């Protein structure tokens, strides 16, 4: 079967799956899954750029997604003027001394002759610099966190529409990726993996503990939305009229009193579906844009060079390609895409909760998507994102149902049965691992393998 037909078929299957969920559970659930599918697909595209185009193993997807998430807070929340007033002087001082510390140590490293003096100089700079930073920073933090700790206690954001955070999240993720890439990209493949794993844990630790930034584990809830609120829709006449017209068939059959009640219910249902569809539209637009750009990039001379480097780093290096520099580029771009997806996710959730970032869900699941979908193939990653997310979500009810059927012969209060039912949800981890290993072994290219281009 040609890859094109396979692609159509695979996405047909996805559509059928979503339709089944729509009919069997509800369209609301189905659309909710679809939205997360799209976000997952964008994340998978980001990972695919790094792994599929360049062979870079980024095991810190979670960190970049969280950076996108915190961007949503920093962009959309209103600035807390009091907090800024109370702390700006000290913050500025802390920032200056922090940056100065880094600059001076780098300068020491570059200018001084290697030896004991250099080591001493750098150590001294760092110790003094950090002490100075802490000296002005700690009181600043205390003064920020003292302001209405139950409600705010942080600096707030820029007060811009949240949709800008998608861009901002990408930029922040790219910036951090530049720092990591500078340090880790010259190293071996598995060291990069471990370095990215580490940095993602650190990003999460920072977000959990720096309350002044985004309230830490106290979470930021009630983020603004790029789409209308259900409650507003339910009271706007155009929406009610539209629903009345849409469901006129069902409404006509009922009498007046019942009609009112039915209409009310229809409007409530329709409003939540409408909101989800708005998100779907926005997310799909981002996905289409990212996909378009990646396909174009992959077919460009730059993309050809990328693949040449991936397939034979040494030969490409010998031909004068700056391998490390190209790797840095793709690492930054891929991380930015993950950051964008992370910001979209937090926008959809409407809240930022650092504790929800778990490596299994945010790093390794995305990897399963890329490998299963087909590494190196953009459509494959998108497919992987859709398929794996559906399986991940639906494995839970299906698992519980299977357990219920499987343990039906046991008594209702049987301890084993209760245990199995309670923990059935965890089997989806097992199942994901199994899918990953099976695909790697029996179909190493994934469902939609990379198309080998003939020049």
């Amino acid at each position, binding site marked *: 079967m040609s890859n094109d037909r396979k692609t159509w078929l695979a996405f047909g299957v996805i559509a059928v799956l979503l339709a089944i969920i729509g009919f069997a559970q509800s369209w609301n659930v189905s659309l909710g899954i679809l939205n997360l599918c799209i976000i997952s697909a964008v994340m998978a595209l980001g990972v695919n750029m790094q792994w599929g185009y360049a062979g870079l193993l980024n095991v810190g997807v979670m960190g970049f997604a969280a950076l996108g998430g915190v961007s949503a807070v920093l962009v959309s929340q209103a600035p807390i003027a009091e907090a800024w007033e109370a702390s700006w002087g000290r913050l500025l001082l802390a920032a200056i001394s922090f940056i100065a510390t880094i600059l001076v140590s780098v300068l020491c490293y570059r200018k001084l002759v290697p030896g004991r003096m250099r080591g001493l100089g750098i150590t001294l700079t760092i110790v003094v610099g950090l002490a100075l930073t802490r000296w002005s920073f700690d009181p600043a933090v205390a003064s920020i966190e003292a302001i209405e700790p139950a409600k705010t206690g942080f600096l707030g954001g820029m007060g811009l529409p949240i949709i800008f955070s998608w861009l901002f999240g990408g930029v922040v993720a790219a910036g951090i990726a530049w720092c990591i890439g500078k340090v880790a990209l010259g190293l071996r493949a598995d060291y990069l993996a471990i370095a990215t794993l*580490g940095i993602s844990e*650190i990003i999460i630790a920072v977000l959990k503990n720096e309350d002044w930034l985004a309230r830490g584990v106290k979470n930021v809830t009630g983020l603004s939305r790029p789409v209308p609120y259900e409650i507003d829709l339910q009271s706007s006449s155009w929406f009610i009229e539209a629903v009345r017209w849409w469901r006129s068939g069902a409404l006509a059959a009922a009498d007046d009193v019942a009609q009112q009640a039915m209409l009310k219910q229809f409007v409530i249902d329709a409003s939540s579906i409408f909101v989800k569809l708005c998100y779907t539209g926005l997310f799909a637009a981002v996905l289409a844009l990212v996909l378009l750009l990646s396909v174009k990039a992959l077919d460009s001379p730059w993309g050809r060079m990328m693949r040449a480097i991936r397939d034979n780093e040494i030969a490409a290096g010998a031909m004068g390609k700056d391998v490390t520099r190209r790797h840095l580029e793709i690492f930054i771009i891929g991380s930015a895409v993950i950051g964008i997806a992370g910001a979209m996710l937090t926008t959809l959730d409407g809240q930022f909760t650092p504790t929800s970032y778990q490596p299994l869900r945010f790093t390794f699941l995305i990897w399963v998507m890329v490998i299963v979908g087909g590494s190196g193939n953009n459509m494959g990653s998108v497919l992987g994102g859709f398929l794996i997310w559906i399986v991940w979500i639906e494995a839970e009810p299906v698992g519980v149902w299977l357990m219920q059927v499987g343990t039906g012969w046991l008594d209702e209060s049987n301890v084993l049965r209760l245990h199995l039912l309670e923990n059935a949800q965890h089997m989806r981890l097992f199942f994901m691992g199994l899918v990953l290993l099976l695909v790697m072994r029996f179909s190493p290219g994934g469902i939609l393998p990379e198309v080998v281009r003939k020049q």
Partner: protein
Amino acid sequence: MEAVTDLVNAVVLLLNFVIVPGLSYGSQLALGALGITLVFGILRFANFAHGDTMAFGTMITVLVTWWLQSKGISLGPLPTALLALPAGILLTIALVVITDRSVYRYYRHAKAVPVTFMIASMGVMFMSNGIVRFVIGPNDQRFLDGERFIVSAREFKAATGLSEGLSIKLSQGLTIVIAIILVALLFWFLHKTRTGKAMRAYSDNEDLALLSGVDPDRIVLVTWIITAILATIAGTLYGLDKSFKPFTYLQLLLPMFAAAIVGGIGNPIGAIVGGYVIAFSEVMVTYAYKKVFVYLLPQSLEPEGLLQLLSTDYKFAVSFVILVLVLLVRPTGILRGKLL
């Protein structure tokens, strides 16, 4: 006289909050890192499933401990878990050997690149994580029994008359003693036995080891068995010391990797050195030194802040920073490891 007491108090304080916890945590990390470094030395890949191997072994030990406790069997002052360890070890050996047979062996024979092994190990990680959570659930489980302390703070204060107490938990003492015994056994095995030497030879120069008649399948099997033993014991000791929670073991992966790489990956001594380096840095950087200085300095110079370099939540950052520094300055680790 008072100055001397103050000094002693400060030392006891450091012993209690830095040295003893650092030694026991370091031993746990060292045992974990040894498993990672052995797999790296022989099978040549970074095993992401190692944390979950530890979790699996500990889980079995916990379950058997509960069963023994329900039968009224105990070890007196020692934790019953020690009695349950052999069962945990055996089943963990079964797990890793089955994993090797069904997953890694295929790639070994296909001469796959290390990255493929690494991604496969992520799949294994998912599966064993799922099994552990399915069987025992995602929550905290306590299974420590027997005596709590070798030396309790109260007894110590009463005996010495100092105002600072020193407490050594039995689990900490056990960790250190068992780690020393295990490491001694491991090094005896690697340096004095035929199979151990063959393992070192295989790790050093695979082709030449094959030319000398070393059977690679046997070496790999032995490596997995040792790894399973180390992982189960390290995991159980960690669980006794803190508590058993599946997710914590996934998080231990980072400091263990850091320990293995910092020491020089593929080098067993390096893994031990790395374990203690990472553990002591974590403990020292996140300890609040205020009280120590209160004892050491005259009253007029007493510090205002906690004198804590970093909040304890950043202990992962510590292992990471050390890792990055070592990679930049000396990519082969403190003791020369492999640069594949």
